[in-house]
């Protein structure tokens, strides 16, 4: 019975329980509702932080419930990889929720937003802390479906359209995962993540399963050509939800792909069957198209959404290269992109919240009015371009080294080209907002503070992480990424 009281289970169950609690109390007190919504990610974060020493000591936390949903059963685990991703997810979620408590004041149906944000957190934590494919799949569905409610929050016709597209694709993706999961069960008789993988021979069914995984995770991660829902769904959601979708939830697709490649198939098996090529081709197309299309977008949130597509290509590239350093880059980029993209979305959201300006051409001279917000935006954007010593540079550096390890110059050039394109779509924007002339509206300048602290503080914290984390003597995120990649390659926990 006490099995339920262990960290990985609690980090999932508590948000789930809080979902119900928030639903019950929200009609009585909005303060309590907001406090509980912030509490949920905080508890998950602290719980994971508490298991940090144990995991760093090389011990994998693993709990199994074989009696739930036979014949596959459920299990939870924490290793280096899930610790890093779990910490990032819960931390970003915490900041975004604090931000949301102020941002959502202007919105309708708040009593729907907070419970479902908490439920989505439960699903996401479940995905990351799952110990086997089946548990992974169950929480993946929970996360995907409850995120639908966040996407269609505005209930405008275009939100409903984007939401429906998301829903159909996400269910298709879920079914692909379901098929792949039971196919793996059929082949190996188990679905539990194992170091070095457990599929001994890559048969025809296994290849089908791999492509089904690629489709399922590709839809979630927005890999071209399965990304079609993403540029529509991310912009229509309220900005905190966009930050969660782009910053956090996309990463579950990449996380799942890492698990499948290293803990289900084993990277030698993947390489032996030539399955890595399909990932590399998709990654290259995704990086190129995502960045290129972003340049042409006028709506700031759509530009950021397309940029996410390109960035997910980086992560897939890092996985598909099957090199340790490339994998370090991919894992670190899960962290880096989460921090950068959520600060960009939060900053963009702050501008929309304050001024209602969604079009990039309207942003001229905003830097005078919203200095801190635009500084955060600038820092995050420069990091996306890959300027050292910001976080974005670190992942690009590792990815480039990994490409060279794989003996593939082409990908280094692709990374540079993509950085160039990032520069093209971020730099003019920065220039115009910081140094451009404000269009008119001089009279509106007021003495009120730029933004309430609940919106400013999360952005500033994220920006500080972007700037400072690599200046530490030992970058803690990079350290965990290195350990995780090392463990995945050695075939140990």
């Amino acid at each position: 019975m006490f099995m339920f009281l262990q960290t990985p289970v609690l980090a999932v169950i508590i948000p789930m329980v809080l979902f119900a609690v928030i639903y019950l109390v929200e009609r009585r007190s909005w303060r309590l509702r907001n406090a509980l919504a912030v509490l949920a990610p905080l508890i998950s974060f602290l719980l994971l932080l508490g298991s940090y020493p144990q995991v760093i000591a090389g011990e994998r936390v693993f709990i199994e419930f074989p009696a739930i949903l036979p014949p596959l059963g459920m299990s939870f685990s924490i290793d280096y990889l899930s610790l890093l991703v779990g910490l990032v997810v819960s931390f970003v979620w915490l900041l975004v929720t604090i931000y949301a408590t102020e941002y959502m004041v202007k919105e309708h149906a708040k009593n729907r937003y907070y419970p479902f944000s908490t439920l989505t957190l439960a699903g996401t934590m479940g995905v990351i802390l799952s110990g086997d494919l089946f548990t992974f799949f169950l929480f993946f569905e929970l996360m995907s479906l409850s995120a639908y409610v966040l996407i269609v929050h505005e209930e405008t016709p275009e939100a409903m359209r984007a939401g429906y597209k998301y829903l159909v694709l996400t269910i298709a993706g879920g079914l692909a995962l379901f098929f792949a999961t039971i196919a793996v069960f059929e082949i190996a008789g188990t679905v539990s993540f194992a170091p070095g993988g457990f599929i001994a021979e890559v048969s025809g069914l296994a290849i089908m399963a791999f492509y089904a995984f690629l489709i399922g995770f590709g839809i979630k991660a927005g890999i071209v050509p399965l990304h079609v829902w993403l540029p529509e769904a991310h912009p229509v959601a309220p900005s905190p939800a966009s930050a969660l979708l782009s910053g956090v939830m996309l990463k579950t697709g990449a996380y799942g792909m890492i698990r499948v490649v290293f803990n289900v198939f084993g990277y030698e098996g993947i390489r032996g069957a030539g399955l890595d090529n399909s990932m590399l081709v998709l990654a290259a197309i995704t990086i190129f198209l995502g960045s290129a299309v972003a340049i042409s977008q006028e709506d700031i949130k759509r530009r950021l959404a397309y940029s996410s597509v390109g960035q997910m290509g980086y992560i897939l590239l890092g996985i598909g290269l099957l090199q340790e350093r490339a994998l370090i880059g991919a894992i670190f980029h899960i962290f880096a992109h989460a921090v950068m993209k959520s600060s960009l979305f939060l900053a963009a959201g702050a501008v929309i919240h304050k001024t209602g300006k969604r079009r990039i051409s309207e942003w001229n001279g905003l830097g005078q009015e919203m200095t801190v917000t635009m500084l955060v935006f600038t820092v995050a954007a420069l990091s996306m371009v890959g300027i050292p010593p910001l976080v974005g540079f670190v992942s690009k550096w590792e990815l480039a080294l990994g490409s060279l390890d794989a003996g593939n110059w082409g990908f280094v050039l692709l990374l540079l080209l993509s950085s160039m394109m990032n520069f093209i779509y971020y730099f003019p924007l920065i220039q115009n907002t910081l140094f451009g002339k404000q269009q008119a509206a001089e009279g509106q300048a007021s003495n009120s503070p730029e933004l309430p602290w609940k919106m400013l503080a999360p952005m500033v914290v994220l920006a500080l992480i972007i700037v400072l984390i690599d200046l530490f003597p030992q970058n803690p995120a990079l350290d965990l990424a290195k350990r995780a990649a090392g463990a995945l390659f050695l075939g140990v926990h």
Partner: protein
Amino acid sequence: MFSLTHAPILMVVILLTAAFIVPLLRKHLLVAKALFLGAGLLVTILSFLVAWNVLENGTMVYNVGGWAAPHGIALVVDAFAAYVSLVISVISLVIFWFAVFAPREVKHEVGYYALILLLTAAMHGIVMAGDIFNLFVFVEISSLAAVAIIAVKGTKESIEASFRYLILSALGSGGLLFSIALLFMVTGHLNMDLMRQTLEVTAGQYPLNVLTALAFMVVGLGVKSALFPLHIWLPDAHANAPTASSALLSGLVVKVYIVALMRIAYMTLGMELFYLLPIRQILLVMASLAIVAGSVFAIVQDNIKRLLAFSTVAQVGYIFLGFSLLSARAVEGAVWHILIHAIMKTLLFLAVGVVIHQSGYKKISQLHGLGRRMPLTFACITLGALSMVGIPGTAGFISKLYLALGALDAGQAIFAVLILLSSLLSAVYYFPLIITAYFGHDASPTVVEPSLAVQLPLVVLAIAVLFYGLMPSILLPLVRQTALLITR
């Protein structure tokens, strides 16, 4: 502890007796209702006891009047019969409750109760019958009662639909009777057990007769269980019946005929024979077509009850698919699906009936904002719909899981893909129902929830959907034993 020997026959007798007493109580409506519910409750208790007894002590054989086979009539309650009769009694009890407390839809209430009782008695009879002729008699009773509970609504559409159902169902009965005659010719027995023993010897001598008998049986019972393309009567019949009838027909009646087919084709004719004939391949193809066609037709429906009816066509395909894939897990999946589809389709038909009655809207496109007016009813509909799609955490996921695993076990990955494709299609037609109800402008501020007594059955079924979705292990022993009976 009293003996359970007589329990199987009592279940049928109680319901039949009540069916004949209830119409006499026209002047005493309350007594009639009490008797109706009481009979349902008593039978439910008995079916629980019987199921427990079968699990503990194995198959029960009851010789009516003490006359043993081959002369007497036998009731054979194995795990399969116990399981299905448990499903029938529990689901029908919920529907009984609904029929008593829901707003009136039919003129002669007591007559309606009598027909429902008759139908339920016949269903129990079909699953427990030990000889093939009694099975036929019960099939006839249930077919006629099923037609009557559609026509009882008295509208033009319902009479037309029930008439079409009557004719097709009569054709099916003819086919069934013909096949029984052929089998009797070959074996000289009507008792299923003796028939099987004889067939082991004589089937090889008269292959053509057995083949013809099997063909007529599949078509005859296929019409009644709406196996594609023999389903054409179903959408009209189920969509135009009174709410309780729709639930009973879609949730239970079509499945009972599948059970009858399994009992004769698999358990009497025997597996060896079954493998020799192409019936299994034919069933696989028809089941797959049913799944795809049922879903495609459902997508284009705007009328909610017709949507549910077409979805039944697809779901019947799931059950046939599981039974014809024949791997242990696929059969378990089909057995699960008999229960799970009964729960969720009954839930959806009852809830939709409540919505139609409270709001007057019959189309999905009219439901805007109703989810806020009828929160509890729509919470139940949402659960039911999620379960139909097979979202994890709901009961529908369990049968999907077993069926898909079973398809892989049988080495036929293509059918696993088909099952998943069909789930995607169900999502396409079930999600608009939920989305329209919860999002968008509020079009009907005057609509209110019905009374608690009407909502109780919905809530019970919704809890069952969650319960079996989260802990299916409770019924697993019975399902396993049933599947073993079929695949042995």
